[in-house]
């Protein structure tokens, strides 16, 4: 009997000491992934954001951080906390911001996020991400413990009148050249006739409110033949630039840097690329154009080389014949 008790005790102690976490699988989703809000100072609203757990049962919590755009491709830098004149809280009865909750496998929960703009909040945009944070596992071994954050963007514009001036411009419209030729103070962009022609379009927003430009690119040949491509209307946040990208991006072997789109085909002569930018619910239209030249330079070079080699061979042959003839004449004499 004593032996059995000691055995059970030892087993319990061993179990307690050797507690190791199983490798947990995280698989979560949020909906909606983004909310765009225009709000007056002093007003508040409620927004529901769903979290679904398709992985193992885990402990989650919520947090909100401010962010700023960090590059021209939709990247961001997070701040340490939610800054600005917006106040956030959860209206769920069982869950507050930062509180931990268990979400079982295959279950879903909804965060009812209350967003309030303080009285006299300065007009302008404020950008946040609502995070659902999955706690890391616990283990007794040398290990890295994965804590996971999944975020939903909350883009808030504070305005008293609802009037949000659009201050967007086309900051860059460029064809990536194969060759560049500077002549008479002008730089010519040249591509091979069978090249992919990558185009970069960057939109700058110098205003205090984000803009969502719709950009259409048009390629026109000197013979009047044209091709049009629409770029995805991505948000350009305040005081930032953004590379606009085609939604279904074509494969591009020549693209060493991020580009907006690629024109493909066989090109010859002068081409004009124009960008037309419009905005939702606004009459404002902005245009920019650039041009490039396309020639089968490699083919022309090869043909030139062949011609040169042929010419040299012909000259040599003629000289050889001449010498042979001279030699024959000498022998004849």
């Amino acid at each position, binding site marked *: 009997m004593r032996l059995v008790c000691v055995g059970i005790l030892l087993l319990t102690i061993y179990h307690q000491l050797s507690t190791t*976490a*199983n*490798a*947990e*699988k*995280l*698989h*979560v*989703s*949020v*909906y*909606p*992934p*983004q*909310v*765009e*809000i*225009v*709000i*007056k100072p*002093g*007003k*508040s*609203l*409620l*927004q*529901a954001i*769903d979290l*679904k757990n*398709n992985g193992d049962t885990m402990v989650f919590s919520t947090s909100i951080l401010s962010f700023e755009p960090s590059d021209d*491709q*939709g*990247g*961001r830098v*997070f701040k340490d906390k939610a800054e600005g004149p917006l106040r956030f809280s959860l209206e769920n009865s069982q869950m507050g911001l930062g509180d931990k909750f268990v979400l079982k496998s295959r279950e879903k929960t909804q965060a009812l996020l209350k967003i309030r703009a303080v009285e006299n909040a300065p007009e302008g945009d404020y*950008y946040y991400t609502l*995070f659902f944070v*999955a706690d*890391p596992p616990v*283990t007794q*071994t*040398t*290990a*890295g*413990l*994965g*804590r*996971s*954050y999944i*975020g939903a*963007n909350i*883009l808030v514009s504070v305005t008293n009148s*609802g009037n949000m001036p659009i201050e967007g411009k086309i900051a860059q419209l460029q064809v990536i050249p194969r060759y560049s030729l500077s002549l008479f103070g002008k730089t010519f962009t040249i591509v091979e006739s069978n090249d992919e022609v990558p185009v970069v379009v960057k939109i700058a927003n110098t205003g205090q409110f984000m803009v969502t430009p719709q950009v259409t690119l048009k390629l026109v040949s000197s013979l009047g033949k044209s091709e049009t491509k*629409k770029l*995805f209307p*991505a948000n350009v*946040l305040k005081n930032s630039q953004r590379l606009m*990208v085609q*939604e*279904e991006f074509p494969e591009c072997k020549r693209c060493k840097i991020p580009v907006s789109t690629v024109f493909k085909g066989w090109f010859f002569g002068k081409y004009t690329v124009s960008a037309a930018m419009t905005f939702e619910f606004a009459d404002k239209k902005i245009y920019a154009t650039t041009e490039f030249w396309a020639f089968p330079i490699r083919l022309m070079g090869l043909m030139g080389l062949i011609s040169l080699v042929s010419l040299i061979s012909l000259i040599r042959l003629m000289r050889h014949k001449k010498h042979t003839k001279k030699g024959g004449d000498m022998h004849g004499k």
Partner: protein
Amino acid sequence: MNLINNLVSMLIRVSIVFVLLLTLNSQLSTEVYAVNMNSTNYNIIFGNLNIGSGRHDSPNYSMTTSLGQTFADRFTSSGFVVKVGFQYIFTTMPFEFEISSTLINFGTLIPNTFPTPLPTLDVTITNPSRGYDVQVIEDHPLRTLSLHFIPDTTCNGGIQACSRTSANVWTSTAATGFGYNASGHDVTADFLNNTYYRPFASREAGHSPVTFMSSTIAAKNRISTVTFLANIDGAQATGTYQTVINFIAVPKY
């Protein structure tokens, strides 16, 4: 004969009553597709309940539709407008994030020897509407409770020194430290192959999270494999070394 006639007549009656009941049911139970919850203080906007939606393009026109959508146009209330729906962000699909394992187990580290196999995990992202970023940052370097550290790697060092945003070659077992490699879809270009590593950004040191996987276009089942490497020398104090690695997945704005 009479019996058969009676049976047929009864069947016809039953059928007529059944059809009548069905019609009545369909009239009474007309489905409602829109949900709108208002009060003077708040307004809850749920995701759209679409019975049909899509984007239709031809060379001559472009049109978006979302039949049965609760708020097909901008939703306006007294003092705010919320854009959350198909017409504006072209999505009815959630943003999904998956990590194959949240435990990166190094087992027992042997001085000047790379662990085999190296611990790995897969990161999977699905965002059908837009691009995404996955960032990573550690709480602090690997350390014991008695504050012995395994420092963050500098890779092979010298001309092959790496930084938080620029991977470099780490093949020398004499070079100690802790770092990671990434391979697969959409990983940053500095991870040229599986010998290229970066040290983690550290919250304790006041760093910002660093992106290692990113796309500017819509993504479905984009998978990268993150490989972790920790290497010590003979002078490393014995103990259990741990840190928390934070993986941050966000949709592009």
